[in-house]
């Protein structure tokens, strides 16, 4: 390590952003091995066109596909104290954060937005597994509280897409305290008589599963998503036996009564609209790809991120 590798190389790399020169024009499906053209994969919501394997999708891509006309407004999340414990393992926590921000182009592991789906106004939050494993720290807690408060203020349902390895160890006990914090937040929504729907995506584990991700009025999961409290490896080490095929996968949980539905990503939007409109006693939804609402939303508060702009 010297100043060239530390300083010059990162600067040079940043001249070519990820989106301009995709590292891989072809992406290999980790499940069936099929080579998929990146644009086609994006259009198919990051689901393998050959075997239907659901790959990770960023919150921004998900929201673009979810909201009518791809239009949503980000809900601002209060920034917490950075590195409250002065945590250092092999790296300093602030350095890990910066690295994650650089590689994802996002501020933190959760994005909150408001907009309409099938002309049904909602508040949505999505966890970003590519940002430090989607881990839940103060920011994610703040994001869920902000989303819940916004949902209550606007009297809208709250839809949450979970994806996380669990609590963020680098925030120690404060990450653990996000379990009660987020529980208070989602209960505010429920007590206001508004639906709280959780869509569990691969993977949702640990303290995230053991708090807000399991408290939805309706629990939907994407196919084959790993959903658990303790991960399979920990369990195998504890009980010293092989676990059954499909253990802790979405379909297994459905069989064991832990979920309402397992739904393909392309069907999710319609299902959410259908369920929400019934819970809210609204008329059946207008189907199909709707353009962005004309009057209800102001122009996005923030410049659309560079990512979205470049996509066009």
């Amino acid at each position, binding site marked *: 390590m010297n100043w060239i590798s530390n300083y010059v190389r990162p600067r040079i790399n940043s001249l070519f952003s990820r989106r301009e020169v995709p590292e891989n024009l072809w992406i290999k499906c980790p499940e069936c091995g099929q080579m998929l053209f990146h644009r086609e994969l994006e259009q198919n919501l990051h689901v393998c066109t050959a075997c239907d394997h659901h790959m990770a999708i960023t919150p921004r891509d998900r929201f673009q596909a979810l909201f009518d006309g791809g239009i949503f407004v980000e809900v601002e999340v209060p920034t*917490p104290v950075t590195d409250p*414990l002065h945590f250092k393992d092999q790296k300093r926590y602030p350095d890990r954060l910066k690295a994650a921000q650089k590689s994802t182009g996002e501020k933190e592991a959760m994005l909150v937005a408001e907009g309409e789906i099938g002309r049904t106004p909602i508040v949505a939050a999505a966890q970003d597994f590519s940002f430090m494993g989607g881990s839940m720290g103060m920011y994610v807690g703040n994001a869920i509280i902000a989303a819940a408060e916004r949902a209550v203020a606007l009297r809208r349902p709250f839809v949450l897409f979970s994806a996380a390895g669990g609590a963020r160890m680098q925030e120690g006990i*404060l990450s*653990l305290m996000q379990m009660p*914090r987020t529980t208070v937040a989602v209960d505010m929504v429920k007590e206001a008589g508004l639906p709280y729907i959780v869509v569990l995506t691969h993977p949702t584990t640990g303290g995230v599963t053991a708090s807000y991700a*399991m408290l939805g009025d309706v629990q939907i999961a994407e196919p084959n998503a790993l959903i658990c409290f303790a991960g399979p490896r920990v369990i195998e080490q504890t009980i010293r036996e092989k676990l059954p095929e499909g253990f802790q996968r979405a379909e297994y949980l459905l069989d064991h009564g832990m979920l309402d539905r397992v739904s393909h990503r392309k069907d999710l939007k319609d299902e959410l609209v259908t369920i929400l409109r019934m819970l809210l006693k609204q008329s059946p939804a207008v189907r199909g790809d709707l353009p962005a609402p004309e009057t209800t939303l102001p122009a996005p508060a923030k410049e659309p991120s560079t990512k979205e702009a470049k996509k066009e």
Partner: protein
Amino acid sequence: MTNYLEFEKPLAEIEGKAEELRAMARANEEMDIEKEAAALDRKAETMLQDLYRDLTPWRKCQVARHPDRPHCRDYIEALFNEYTPLAGDRNFADDHAVMGGLARLGDMPVMVIGHEKGHDTKSRIERNFGMARPEGYRKAIRLMDMADRFGLPVISLVDTPGAYPGKGAEERGQSEAIARSTEKCLSLRVPLVSVIIGEGGSGGAVAFATGNTVMMLEHSIYSVISPEGCASILWKDAEKMREAAEALRLTAQDLKALGVIDRIISEPIGGAQRGREDTIRAVGKALEVELKALSEKKPDALRKDRRRKYLDMGSKGLAA
């Protein structure tokens, strides 16, 4: 027989020598060793004080897990009258890792719940080392619900390495049970006072410890993950648990500074395992004081304040 911890080895040697001398003197009446033995005693006592004056976080973990520390059952037996255990989750089983039932603290009827680790091999297995399954959390939810209906304060005694990572526990909804138990803690309109008496292991502890007042014994720990687990993930080496224990800020003192807990209950010199009765008495006193303070609050305020406390938690970090 005292169970010495690894860092207490020098102490074990001195105490052993004093014991040996006294044994020799008993065998041979002409020997006068009392002076020497007393000197060793004094040396041992000073050493004990030195060892415990400034325990490192990893040493605190060891003390918190000490097998001779008073456990949930000991507190219930010593502090409460008319303890009447109530069993089962009404769905699947009774989880022996969780004790719970009606009891009187002084004259006051309360609901007490807690993790019990067991005190010998047989009871440890029966109690599953204090690692609850979903049924344990669901039993607790049921008991908290009952307390809420009848206006009884809830006391929770937390001492668990964590929720049990087993196949059946996962199949029966370990995460959902923990989430609901935390949610129940937050919804109560009666006082909920929690004491972390040993290990506060992650979500399995939060499920009981989301209280109006959360207290910790001086050498107990409360953490998002065990230092060993954290070390193996972040350091890729489980042997780095000392570093991990340091970084995680899992001591009562750090947690108080972070505003996560409200009160620290002192332990006798040498830890709760060397002064079991004193420790239990101190916990009893603290419970009475805190319950009395909360008894003046109205039901809705108890619930609202508890929720506010958790929403606001973590707004400040540790001072630099």
